[in-house]
């Protein structure tokens, strides 16, 4: 079953909030860099990937990381991989 953009947005938001509980995930623009916007360091980003994997069931490889740069690119990635 394909992950819809709304579902993907919720998953990203949930993952970010686990790491940065006061993050303004609703206010993030689709093309903003997630790492910069939420001050995620390398270890945070690894946690983000793990949390996203848990929720979506999608296996995420190192090569996929560039596709997790923004909300929009992550939505597109999850939609494609979960289909």
């Amino acid at each position: 079953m394909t992950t819809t953009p709304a579902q993907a947005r919720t998953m990203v938001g949930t993952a970010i909030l686990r790491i940065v509980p006061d993050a303004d995930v609703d206010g993030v623009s689709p093309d903003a860099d997630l790492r910069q916007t939420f001050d995620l360091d390398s270890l945070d980003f690894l946690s983000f990937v793990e949390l996203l994997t848990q929720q979506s069931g999608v296996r995420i490889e190192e090569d996929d990381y560039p596709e997790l740069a923004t909300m929009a690119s992550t939505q597109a990635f999850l939609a494609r991989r979960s289909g």
Partner: protein
Amino acid sequence: MSGPTVGVDARTGAPAESGDDAARASAEVWRAARRLLDGLPGDRGLNIAHEAVDRHVLHGDGGVVALRCVAPDESVSEVTYADLASLTNRFARVLDRLGVAPGEAVFSLLGRGLETYVTALGTLKHTSLYCPLFAAFGPEPVRERLRLGHGRVLVTTYDLYRRRVAPVRDGLPDLRHVLLVDAVPPAGPDGAAAGTAVPGTLSWAALLDDADDSYEIPATDPETPALLHFTSGTTGKPKGAVHVHEAVVAHHATGAHALGLRGGDVFWCTADPGWVTGTSYGIVAPLTHGVTVVCDAGEFNARRWYRILQGHRVTVWYTAPTALRMLMRTGGELAREYDLSALRHVASVGEPLNPEAVVWGQETFDRPVLDNWWQTETGAIMISNEPGSPVRPGSMGVPVPGVVATVLERGDDGRALVVDGAVREVTDPGGTGELALRPGWPSMFRGYLDDEARYRRCFAGGWYLTGDLARRDEDGYYWFVGRADDVIKSAGHLIGPFEVESALMEHPAVAEAGVIGKPDPVAGEVVKAFVTLRRGFEPTEDLRLELVAFGRRRLGSVAPREIAFDQNLPHTRSGKVMRRLLKARELGLPEGDLSTLERV
């Protein structure tokens, strides 16, 4: 002048008793190392920036590429030694124009990029004190270090200024000038010359453009303070370790001995410029060898890193176990897609490499990863697996020439046992004790800023006490065991539990906090906090999340990644939180075993 005062004591730094053959041999090693450097023309002393930059231009190598700066989009800009000489001259002139005095502190809060090099080396030319800050620090650690270091000038970006400095600037009366390196619009018609649209800041670019590109480095006594690096202890505030210009002798010598640097090399040090490695080996050591330094502004990404190693034909690579473990997660196949044949040496610092990482490194790079050991106070590599010598996986190696090390018997508090001013060396091969070094190497810190007493406490019985536990095997190889105190080592960086606890206790719900390092497969340790709530606060998930967010806002990336509630924190008789007991509980160890480690 309200500038820094430094407890420099050349006597403490002098070799031990004159009859000591080892001390005499060490002194001779360092004298020989000094002869490999030029000194300022006209016999006017020794300045790090002259050795790192100007002397190559004088030798006719100004056209050699000093820096290859890789932008986040992987575009590359090259800076020659002649360019770097000119830019650092300009920056020294800017400091003159701003009325900065020799010895006053110039801070940087920057990522990896040309501006870091120009700020560091221009400040050293000016004989002011250079102090780098980690750009992932939150406002609280930034404020504390700028305050303790009497920062006079700060070089940073608009974004970092806005988020980390502007909120705390009122509490920093010593901070006169903030220079923003990004293209920010100039001030309006009534603004100061070189001012920007951001109140209270100046434009780095405008100031550099206006400055003359010639500058004569003033006479520099080798004992002149040069570098200020903050590090963390178990208790109290961060400590500002002061290094002098003579440190360059050790930077240069260890660059050759431990990293195998030689002319024509392309060198990449992945350390953040905000920590001591980023200065000693990201800037000084490689440039004194006249090699080309790769400086990557991008975030960690395995493919990106392999592309850099391949594309720039990196010959010597200095990185950290956390980075190697992050690469390991991606498997060896990824690495094999790249041509890494230019690599001659791979070295690592920060914590011992676990056996899997050693094996993986050997298989992936077709050469051993050379582990070495040093710390902020030592200024340069002290113990290493030198290139070409047999590596014992998991060992930090043997002392570099000129360094005399030992392992000292411990007392009840876990630190070296000192009785009437004397210490005892561990004589059994394999016995664990506190790692200690004979004072006298050139890059030894000369004091903690404004804290002579704390500096004194680092020495006993003619040894510098490192705070690290180690054992030495029968062949003289050293093996890291752990910290002798409660300092947390995360991703190779030292984090002081006190600083984290203090920040958490500023939250109205927190009565007390105990902070430990929790083992982590990638970072070695991550920061975990145990928190006791004040009366009237409930241990809810919402409150826990609020505290996590509160910590991140204040501390940035040294904030606790995990917080647990604990209304019964264990205390010593004197009322301090027993972090070791918290750690034992976290690890599921029997608590009784700690009786020898913690005096209750």
